[in-house]
């Protein structure tokens, strides 16, 4: 606990816990909806946004966030194409975002280093204003997820039933995708792409292996996300390891254990 008396370590723990609190509950639907690579696509789109902002000399993160929101607004409108599976669309977002980022970085006066510095945060160097931004944005994300629980559930589980009940599938898919896009873009800025991606997938995957109730899955995913993050931060300090990969490794180990548990559990 003496670790927490060091001011910057308090920031690290708070940033990690906030990222876990914001992303872990979303991870349940991200896994159930089979859109786990949305996290990777958001990273590339954010890169393109940052490169665009630097090219034109405007605030990078605001542009990255705006581009992410606009992209996911469009994504949610075409996500139900009868011609293409959703993963093809996510793959094209990833590829298109990567290409745009590279092309814009080539023309950027400050080069690749600045873009990556602005975009990919490090959990050890999260500034205080970013922590406050995480508090506000993730509070809104969690509130939306709690209040719109029935809409998110039925449009993901049975969209035809949702339509028959007069619930707008397009509207609530848009709300969901934009929520995920904003949360991931902010988390990448704070804790880096690898940890953000892991927190968007692993807690939900672990929880869905372990429990038979959706409500319990959200609770367990949140607990797993926060616990792995805090233990990983302390572990990385004690064993002198890089923090992000330590947390991700811990999440991967928890997933392996939960997967074995699910395989051995009677059907």
């Amino acid at each position, binding site marked *: 606990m003496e670790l927490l008396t060091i001011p910057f370590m308090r920031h690290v723990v708070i940033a990690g816990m906030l990222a876990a609190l914001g992303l872990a509950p979303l991870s349940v639907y991200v896994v159930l909806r089979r859109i786990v690579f949305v996290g990777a696509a958001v990273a590339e789109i954010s890169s393109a946004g940052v490169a665009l902002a630097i090219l034109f000399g405007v605030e990078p993160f605001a542009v990255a966030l705006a581009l992410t929101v606009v992209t996911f607004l469009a994504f949610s409108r075409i996500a139900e194409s009868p011609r293409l599976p959703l993963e093809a669309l996510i793959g094209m977002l990833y590829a298109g975002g990567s290409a745009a980022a590279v092309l814009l970085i080539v023309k950027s006066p400050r080069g690749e280093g600045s873009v990556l510095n602005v975009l990919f945060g490090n959990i050890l160097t999260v500034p205080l204003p970013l922590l406050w931004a995480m508090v506000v944005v993730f509070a809104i994300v969690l509130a939306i997820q709690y209040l719109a629980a*029935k809409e998110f*559930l039925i449009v*993901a*589980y049975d969209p*035809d*039933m*949702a339509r028959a009940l007069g*619930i707008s599938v397009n509207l609530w898919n848009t709300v969901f995708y934009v929520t995920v896009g904003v949360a991931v873009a902010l988390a990448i800025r704070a804790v880096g792409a690898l940890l953000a991606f892991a927190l968007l997938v692993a807690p939900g995957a672990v929880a869905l292996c372990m429990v038979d*109730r959706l409500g319990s899955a959200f609770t367990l995913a949140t607990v797993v996300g926060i616990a792995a993050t805090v233990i990983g931060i302390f572990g990385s300090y004690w064993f002198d390891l890089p923090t992000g990969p330590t947390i991700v490794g811990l999440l991967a180990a928890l997933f392996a254990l939960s997967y074995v548990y699910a395989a051995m559990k009677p059907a």
Partner: protein
Amino acid sequence: MPAEILRLRNATLGYGNHAVLTRLNFAIERGDFLGVMGPNGSGKTTLLKAILGLLDPIEGSVEAFGSDGAPPRFGYVPQRERLDPHFPLTSLEVAVMGCFGRLRPMRRPGREDFAIARACLARAKMEEFTEKPYRRLSGGQQQRVLIARALAGEPDALLLDEPTNGMDLEAERAIMEFLIDLQRDQGTTIVFVTHLLSAIEHFARRVAIITRDGSVIIGPKEEMLSPENLTRAYAAGVN
């Protein structure tokens, strides 16, 4: 109260400009027990979607008539194979979805909604499975939960898509007899879509046959199940 719950007038149904069913003219009467049959890919689900209001006709009209001037409420029971078994939901959590249409946006279901869902599960003889994971139930039990979910919306009519698909004869009989009881005791209009001739032959009162040319013929079961009519639906003919 109008005798008809739904009327199609010269309705052409399909997706975009692609017509699947053409110039349909028929009505579904209140309290009907109608089986809709046709081979796979003939447009049964398209017809169901149009009845539910999920698909606007390319031409013509599909009019629905409620008992009190308001639009009728349709309880939709999808093919249970379409629902993702990865979702960890109890039978009660599935059944309460039927109440979602009555709730305001961003309002979570409350005690009253769960009480309605429990009552509907009891009507479907599933009260002892309320807290059981839906994905671990048998096909027949899952079908009962989905019917309970549709009933939780207090529907004027139940629309069921392949309700006995993949079931053994005993489970098929149990589900269909439950639907017959619902129709008789509550006056609920039942429309079920199936490719199984046996379900139509044993349980439907009226039959709509989707023919190979994309039209629909409809009438009492005794008249409809003639070899000539069945040949219009199935290329090889049926005896």
